[in-house]
């Protein structure tokens, strides 16, 4: 690595070092790598470049589920990889969320970055990070009992407190909120209170 590049490094940065020589006469004793362990220095010529953590790929729960199915199809069956890609392209398989990510966005312009990320994910599935959707309380009236609850037995909505349990759901994703029948009232963003991570 050139001196100018080394000068730009900050404490905590990581570098890639080329191991040129290893002394290992006795496997039970300390191993010397180059002049490093006891010398306390590494020649510039052995520092190749700055090391950057490989980029993570963020996926929603639904995208990850489809991606896992895709990998399973590729690895465990005779399905051709190109056939699966074609199915996503033609919207003829069970990959609607991946298709949306790869081919559809708000401007109806294909996002090349998403497609490159998909290729990166295929080669590095361990780097996929599943993003949990944010959840909200729907607070319709200024009262402790003004929170929207979904009765999980009969799927009806009522107003109660914000406590969620196995009978009543009070925390909703935006997708779930969009599906709530809004005949009598309209839920706007004003009514939404974000659920904290530990709630």
């Amino acid at each position: 690595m050139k001196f100018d590049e080394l000068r730009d490094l900050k404490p905590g940065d990581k570098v890639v070092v080329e191991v040129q020589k290893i002394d290992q006469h006795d496997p039970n004793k300390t191993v010397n790598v180059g002049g490093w362990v006891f010398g306390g220095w590494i020649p510039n010529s052995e520092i190749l470049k700055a090391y950057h953590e490989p980029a993570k790929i963020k996926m929603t729960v639904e995208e990850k589920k489809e991606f896992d199915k895709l990998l399973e199809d590729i690895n465990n069956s005779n399905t051709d990889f190109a056939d699966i890609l074609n199915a996503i392209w033609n919207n003829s398989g069970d990959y609607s969320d991946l298709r949306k990510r790869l081919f559809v966005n708000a401007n109806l312009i294909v996002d090349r970055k998403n497609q490159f990320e998909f290729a990166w994910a295929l080669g590095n599935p361990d780097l996929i990070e599943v993003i949990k959707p944010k959840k909200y309380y729907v607070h319709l009236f200024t009262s402790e009992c003004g929170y929207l609850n979904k009765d999980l037995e009969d799927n009806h909505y009522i107003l109660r407190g914000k406590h969620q349990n196995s009978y009543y759901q009070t925390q909703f994703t935006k997708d779930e909120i969009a599906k709530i029948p809004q005949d009598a009232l309209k839920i706007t963003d004003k009514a939404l209170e974000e659920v904290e991570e530990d709630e």
Partner: protein
Amino acid sequence: MNENQKIVLKYLKQLNKSEYSLPYVGLMMVDYDDNSLGNHALNAAGDLTKKEEFEVLAEFAKWGLKDERN
């Protein structure tokens, strides 16, 4: 990377130089196994194992993402 992987990767990069190209098409090319067109890169793609294909895709993505960020 082996020689076939290098050939395929070079081909994918060439195909995707334009900002209007679709990287997705490149993904499909990696799995191409019809040698009848006589295309050198596609023939090389046909010889790749699944593992090698995904290694090429990772390299292709690394190249593409670097380009997209700049």
